[in-house]
């Protein structure tokens, strides 16, 4: 089995590189070195230590400097980075990574297995995502300077999908070992192995990265420098992009109402590719502890009361996909055949509410509750969603005034279960075990902790399926497990899944190879180049 896997990956990588090479040879002249890419950081990060926090702007910048053992293509197939090859034992419990030998840190010191062991056993101990992965590792050993062996407690099918460079960046042990990580001065000027080196941070203005001339891939990267500008106002960001002063934007840098206008500009191209790894889903969440939210008829009634197409078309200006279930369409094992079938049908919603005995009073109100949308700090569109949902619910007799709060208050109240109805959104990180399970498994119902199972949803069948899916190494069997799981959760109408986000990437046409894999703007940008 081990040999088969190796051969399969090697073939895939070889074919990919061959296709890229041939495509490049026939389609266009070879890229030339030079040029500066100007992008954005919004908001400006506190530091660039991507191993210590998950701030998105830190990850976007830090991922050009720091690297992981592998990265992933659009289908989450691993691409070798600091590891040049790997083997998985037949029992699925031992992962052996062979590391590259010619890699140097930006300060000139050699990269070795010691760095990998230190990072995965020490530095990432408190990382909010990857610590869950490494909690499954029994022992990590450097058998020589260029070999690392992870011995797992039990098979863990998501292990090879977990090495997202922004979740598991490998850190230089010689600069971090024995230090207080949060206060380490290198957090502000990281030393990595990536194609770009940290050069300058003018606080409140910009961060500058420059080409790593000693990069382990000869000839790469192409760009001389990458700048990340801090432009806090949305109008200012759009103007900078339009005027060509900024060449690349991502996430919510550009407000929805500007997308159509900018998309039409001949100097720009837009793509929604590159968010596969994060795969963000937004939903209307119920506090299951409070009746009638624990009644599936109520949840389905609300699903029919909400016009999800309206949200997609009018609040997100056509961007995003209407979910068919709990998995984002970009997440592994998503099954399009499992479909909620929730059409916009207020009459059906009223009928379901009638069946529950929630009859309207003289003012037409069936239920008084509250709705807590996502804080406006995360984007103006979340205010619009709250306004729309309030109206849609009112149309079927549910009076849900909006509870408007800022981001830390929203997180605190969600974590403390102090809400009735709420809008929530979370990244699924490629594999259901890494990003989906945390929201739905009952062992994750823990008060005071945000972004776990805050709703209090508990279904032993779903728990069992997630547990089985985590350890099942056979792809077909694993797919069957997750197919069944999606069906169960759709039947339960756990939440009203409102929208799978598709953020726009705007790229100035002077630049090529900007979005090339599932990491999107969190890729290392080693092959980005200017049009000759």
């Amino acid at each position, binding site marked *: 089995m081990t040999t088969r896997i190796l051969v399969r990956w090697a073939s895939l990588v070889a074919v990919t590189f061959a296709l890229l090479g041939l495509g490049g040879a026939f389609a266009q002249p070879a890229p030339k070195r030079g040029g500066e890419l100007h992008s954005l950081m919004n908001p400006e990060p506190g530091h660039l230590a991507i191993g210590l926090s998950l701030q998105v702007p830190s990850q976007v910048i830090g991922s050009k400097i720091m690297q992981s053992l592998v990265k992933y293509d659009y289908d989450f197939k691993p691409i070798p980075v600091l590891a040049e090859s790997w083997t998985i034992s037949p029992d699925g419990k031992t992962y052996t990574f062979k590391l590259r030998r010619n890699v140097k840190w930006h300060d000139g010191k050699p990269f070795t297995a010691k760095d990998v062991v230190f990072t995965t056993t020490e530095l990432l101990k408190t990382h909010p995502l990857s610590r*869950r992965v490494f909690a499954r590792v029994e022992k990590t050993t450097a058998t020589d300077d260029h070999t690392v062996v992870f011995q797992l407690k039990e098979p863990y099918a998501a292990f090879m999908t977990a090495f997202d460079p922004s979740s598991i960046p490998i850190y230089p042990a010689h600069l971090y070992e024995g230090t207080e990580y949060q206060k380490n001065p290198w957090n502000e000027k990281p030393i990595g192995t990536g194609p770009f080196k940290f050069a300058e941070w003018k606080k*409140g203005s910009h961060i500058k990265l420059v080409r790593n001339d000693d990069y382990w891939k000869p000839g790469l990267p192409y760009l001389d420098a990458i700048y990340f500008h801090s432009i*806090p106002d949305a109008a200012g960001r759009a103007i*900078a992009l339009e005027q060509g002063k900024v060449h690349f934007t991502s996430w919510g840098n550009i407000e929805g109402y500007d997308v159509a206008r900018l998309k039409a500009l001949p100097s720009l191209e837009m793509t929604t590719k590159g968010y596969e790894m994060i795969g963000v889903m937004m939903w209307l969440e119920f506090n299951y502890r409070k009746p009638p939210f624990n009644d599936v008829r109520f949840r389905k009634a609300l699903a029919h009361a909400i016009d999800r197409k309206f949200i997609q078309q009018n609040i997100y200006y056509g961007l995003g996909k209407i979910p068919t279930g709990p998995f984002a369409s970009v997440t592994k094992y998503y099954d399009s055949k499992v479909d909620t079938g929730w059409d916009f049908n207020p009459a059906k919603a009223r009928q379901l509410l009638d069946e529950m005995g929630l009859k309207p009073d003289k003012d037409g109100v069936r239920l008084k509750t509250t709705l807590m949308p996502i804080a406006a700090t995360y984007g103006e569109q979340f205010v619009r969603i709250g306004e729309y949902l309030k109206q849609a619910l009112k149309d079927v007799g549910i009076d849900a005034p909006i509870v408007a709060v800022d981001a830390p208050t929203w997180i605190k109240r969600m974590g403390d279960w102090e809400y009735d109805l709420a809008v929530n959104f979370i990244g699924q990180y490629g594999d259901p075990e890494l990003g989906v399970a945390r929201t739905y498994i009952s062992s994750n119902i823990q008060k005071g902790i945000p972004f776990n199972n805050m709703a209090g949803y508990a279904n032993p069948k779903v728990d069992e399926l997630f547990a089985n899916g985590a350890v099942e190494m056979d792809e077909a069997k694993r797919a069957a497990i997750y197919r069944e799981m999606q069906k169960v959760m759709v039947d339960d109408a756990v939440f009203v899944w409102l929208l799978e986000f598709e953020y726009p990437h705007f790229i100035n046409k002077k630049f090529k190879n900007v979005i090339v894999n599932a990491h999107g703007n969190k890729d290392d940008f080693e092959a980005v180049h200017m049009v000759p």
Partner: protein
Amino acid sequence: MGRAGYILRRLLKGVIVVLAIIVLNFFLIRAAPGDPAMALAGEAGAADAEYLAKLRQDFGLDRRLHEQLAIYMWGFVTLDLGYSYKHGQPVIKLIAERLPSTILLTITAYVLSLVLGVVFGTVAALRVNSWVDTTFTVLALVFYAVPLFWLALMSILLFSVVLDWLPAVGYATVGAGHTGFAHVLDVAHHMILPTVALSLFYLAVYARLARASVLEVSRQEFVTTARAKGVDEGRIVRAHILRNAILPVISMAGFQAGHLVGGTVIVETIFAWPGIGRLAFEAALGRDYTLLLGVFFLTSALVVVFNLLTDLIYTVVDPRIEVAA
């Protein structure tokens, strides 16, 4: 005791006021729901109990409130404003990095609005009910009434997008590598829009205040007497009218000088100016307690200092006022 004693007494009172403000802010910030650990978890979009516990331990948030206050105040006394949770850096360093650009912007806007406001107000008052007066009055009302954010956005639209004369955002042209005088010119070029946007409101305030004050003083009997004695009109304006009319303007200018550092959030945000206002705003959103307290300390200390300076300037302008009284 004289002037020195007065200054010392006021400074001592000021220190007490600032300390009281810090203690009050310490509790006020913590009264807001959520804490830095929650805010960081929010930025991460992920958390678990151990992660939050580790963050709270690192930040000292697991200690009791009075212990946290005691630690902060001891740090304050030893000139240590603490460590920013979000930035992982000393607060003093963060403030020091941002302060110069805010001071550059606000002092320029302040001087511009004060000088032009007094000039326009005085000219309008001396030509009361003329077209000049009407024009200044209408413009002052418009500048006073128009929201700053709208004015800023429209100025970007006109001068950056349509005419392409001025840069829309930033402190200097990033990556241009200007040095020396070229850098000064570059910064000045970037300063024009934010400075004008920030100035217009205060310019209107000073112009209206100066106009009203000059009008009132110029109707006083001693001005009529001076004119009857045949004193030169320029001297009447400078020595008799303005000397007296300037006092309310000084009061207002002193009051606003204290708010120079804290009152620039909108302009700094729209024009991407790397200043203190934005730093404070982002600190509030991120529940970055120590950073926010550091900025609050700076702004409250400035208010105390400028109030004292205003009183001292009063004594210079109007010798009838005695500070030691």
